[in-house]
């Protein structure tokens, strides 16, 4: 922190005051292993603010932000209306802390309440919580919730679950007594020991499935059904509530949150009313005050960790209020019709892309499976070789599936959104065709 105006003498005095006699500030961090500590930021000493700004800008310019992206894999490049940044960055929202004190937090609480209501409408479920960290932690929280409901610990994970979320799930449950089985046929492994089946729609490969029958079978076996969904797809797809899902979760990045490396993103969770007390996290509720006025409060607090300590429903006491606010503003700006149009436009453009890509020599494409805005193509060569070459031509070509699946090194996952123009898709297809015929 070179730009805090403390002199060397000031620093020495402060360090000595806290017991570091020789003034070696590094000793403050002795509990952190050396290789985990922040290393040099590679900025030469003695630079002034302007010089440092120029240096950092130069580094930032090395990023190529002009690529046309067909990358999805759970995180999508949808248009973000400018009003979201303007409203969400208002200091009343931006600087607000946890709204425990409802008399001082009506705005934040109302925003959370409205976000929950919007999630309920989108998914068709009865109740939603105030949000979770991201889609991956939401999968984990849903499995813990299913364990509380069923008192069982066997989980069947459909092979279409996002492998990034699956990794997060496994990391979180590493030391917990749970048994995960991955399968492409949950029906087959379903038995009365199953706590839950975990499904995703559209699945990681973009395929849409009506899970109604599978869900019925799971219920008959005494299991609950966890379904991860792509919230924007619900503008046109059958809702998880209509299919009978019990716990609905997902990544809300597509609702007005910019793509970034590592987040912050937004997980959502919604469920049936009968399971509300098994749901983790916080919930904003509406009530009336002593004078009969409408007001908002955090509700079902008695199960959270600041009251229940180690017996709390979850250790996630926090939520993603600011990202949830962005999602709420996005849903409000678009409205029911707008959400439908974005979903439709993404799906129609994806169909167009699928169609022209399928005509390219060397590309194999499964056309019988219905998809939403994402689909898999099989190339004659390794997909990651192609994505590298496509970058030079100005495209992020998609997600090479070989990164997660040993037998899919030639497969590329391609995502299309409402932002893509016909010209862009045509150019993308042309670039790919040229690469493949050379």
């Amino acid at each position, binding site marked *: 922190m070179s730009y805090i105006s403390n002199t060397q003498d000031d620093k020495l005095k402060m360090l000595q005051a806290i017991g570091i006699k020789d003034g070696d500030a590094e000793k403050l961090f002795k509990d952190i292993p050396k290789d985990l500590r922040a290393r040099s930021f590679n900025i030469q000493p003695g630079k002034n603010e302007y010089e440092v700004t120029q240096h950092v800008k130069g580094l930032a310019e090395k990023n190529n932000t002009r690529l046309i992206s067909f990358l999805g894999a759970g995180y999508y490049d949808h248009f973000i209306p400018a009003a979201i940044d303007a409203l969400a960055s208002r200091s009343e929202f931006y600087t607000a802390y946890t709204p425990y004190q409802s008399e001082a937090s009506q705005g934040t609480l109302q925003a959370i309440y409205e976000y929950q209501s919007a999630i309920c409408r989108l998914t068709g479920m009865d109740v939603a919580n105030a949000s979770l960290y991201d889609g991956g932690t939401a999968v984990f929280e849903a499995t813990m919730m299913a364990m509380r409901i069923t008192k069982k610990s066997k989980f069947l994970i459909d092979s279409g679950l996002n492998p990034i979320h699956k990794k997060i799930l496994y990391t979180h449950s590493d030391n917990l007594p749970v048994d995960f089985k991955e399968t492409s046929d949950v029906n087959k492994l379903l038995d009365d020991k199953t706590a839950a089946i975990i499904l995703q729609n559209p699945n990681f490969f973009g395929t849409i499935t009506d899970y109604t029958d599978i869900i019925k079978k799971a219920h008959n076996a005494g299991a609950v059904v966890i379904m991860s969904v792509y919230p924007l797809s619900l503008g046109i797809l059958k809702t998880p509530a209509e299919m009978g899902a019990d716990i609905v979760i997902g990544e809300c990045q597509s609702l007005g949150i910019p793509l970034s490396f590592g987040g912050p993103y937004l997980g959502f969770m919604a469920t049936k009313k009968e399971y509300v*007390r098994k749901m983790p996290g916080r919930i904003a509720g509406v009530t009336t005050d002593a004078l009969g006025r409408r007001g908002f409060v955090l509700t079902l607090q*008695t*199960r959270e960790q600041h*009251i*229940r300590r180690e*017996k709390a429903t979850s250790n996630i006491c926090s939520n993603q209020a600011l990202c949830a606010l962005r999602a709420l503003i996005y849903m409000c700006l678009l409205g029911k019709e707008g959400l439908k149009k974005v979903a439709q436009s993404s799906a129609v453009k994806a169909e167009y892309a699928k169609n022209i890509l399928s005509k390219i020599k060397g590309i194999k494409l499964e056309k019988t499976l219905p998809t939403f805005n994402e689909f898999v193509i099989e190339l004659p060569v390794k997909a990651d070789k192609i994505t590298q070459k496509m970058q030079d031509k100005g495209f992020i070509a998609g997600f090479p599936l070989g990164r997660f699946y040993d037998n899919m090194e030639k497969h590329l996952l391609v995502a299309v959104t409402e932002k893509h123009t016909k010209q862009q898709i045509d150019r993308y297809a042309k670039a790919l065709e040229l690469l493949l015929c050379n």
Partner: protein
Amino acid sequence: MLPENLKYTKEHEWVKIDNDQATFGITEHAQSEMGDVTFVELPEKEASIEQSKAFSTIESVKAASEIYAPLSGSVTDTNEELINKPELINESPYEKGWICKIKLSNPAEADKLMDAMAYQQYLETLKK
């Protein structure tokens, strides 16, 4: 005054024993410490419960508290009126606010419980 026909635990549950049957609830003291009860999680019928182990959770405006079984056995009946009227626990802890009935598996366990006088004395020690 505390009902004389009941036995009590240090965790403030009461039990009424009729031969091999027993009814559980929480005491007047417990309900007044909890405040307004908003939700009672009833045990499942036929569930087997063990003495001193949690078998139910009562949620009040202040906290969600575990309820511990005074005796072991299997659940034969639960007070379903509590689902819609959890406040019965506050209004009538020894009568309408009963939580569940069980068939005892080990009636001798009752020896470990307090009678009304012992529980009264126990409550006095808590006040100090």
